[in-house]
């Protein structure tokens, strides 16, 4: 799973959000590293809805403009949990190995 996709699903994990909300949230989650652009975001949302991982939660009209909120589906929640567990286990191994090398070097 690409990083942008992972971060979009993560942004939606705590509740439904509209497009601009997702962009600012992803910017925050990634510590300012990932700045999603509209083309990338909506191509991803379109693909994720087709795969059944996200769905439209509700629509509002604000200042006569459409604001559409997206939320994770159960399948999306499951998929994100799997990906997060995988990333966590990979990161743990990486940190452990780095630790053991610096431990050897230090001792």
């Amino acid at each position, binding site marked *: 799973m690409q990083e942008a996709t992972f971060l979009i699903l993560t942004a939606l994990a705590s509740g439904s959000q509209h497009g601009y909300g997702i962009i600012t949230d992803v910017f925050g989650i990634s510590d300012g590293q990932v700045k999603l652009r509209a083309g990338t*975001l909506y191509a991803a949302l379109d693909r994720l809805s087709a795969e059944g991982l996200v769905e439209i939660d509700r629509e509002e009209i604000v200042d006569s403009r459409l604001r559409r909120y997206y939320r994770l589906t159960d399948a999306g929640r499951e998929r994100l949990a799997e990906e997060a567990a995988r990333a966590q286990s990979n990161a743990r191994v990486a940190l452990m190995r780095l630790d053991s090398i610096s431990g050897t070097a230090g001792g």
Partner: protein
Amino acid sequence: MSDRSLLERRYRRLLACYPRAFRREHEAEMLVVLLACARDGRRRPGLADSADLLWNALRLRLRLTASRSVPSVFWGVRLMVLAAVFELVSMGTVIATERGVRAAVVRHFPRLDAAHVTAAVHGQVVSVEIGAPIAAAMWLLLAWANDRGHRWARAGAVALFVLTSISLLGAAGQHAAAYALADLLTGVGLCVVALAAMLLIIATGVRPQPGIARSVGCDQCRSASRRGDDRAPGSEPCLPSKTCRSGCVK
């Protein structure tokens, strides 16, 4: 005209590059996001935003959408992409073996004039250099069109397979096996891939075009197409199993 509405008009022009179904579904909310992200006083879309929009529009237009639930189309389309690759590989083989083929022909027909043989072999190579990229482009076009369920593309696959076979048989008829074995073998590989792709595509029942599917599809197809999802017919599983004429598969 205010800066804002000028900017909006320019964004709309960029969004016009997207496929119609995608625009119907997302254009309004994308505009909101694009305008929300733009600094005040901005009159033109930023370069990075424009590039991102155009790049994703291109990807959406080219993206293969046939679902695995229709395996013959799914794999047939992929074999056509492979056939395009094979065309280029066989062109590379022909170019790389030109010298060897010339030597073999001279050995094979000792009475022929060497300059004449060189010209004849080079002529063949040039015709492949022109024909193969065109054929590869045709395979890619047919892959895309079959993926979208266009009926003419099924006939196109048959026609291109026949042309490919004729050119292979032509090469075999010129004793290619004797002096251009590598070229002939990549040609055979190409024909096998093309044959498999064609058989898979024509084995598929008539796949309805999205416009037709909307009117005959089951409820779920129709609700999916109302959402602007062109991939619904033939791809999304439907609830009333096996009853949908649109070809959605349960």
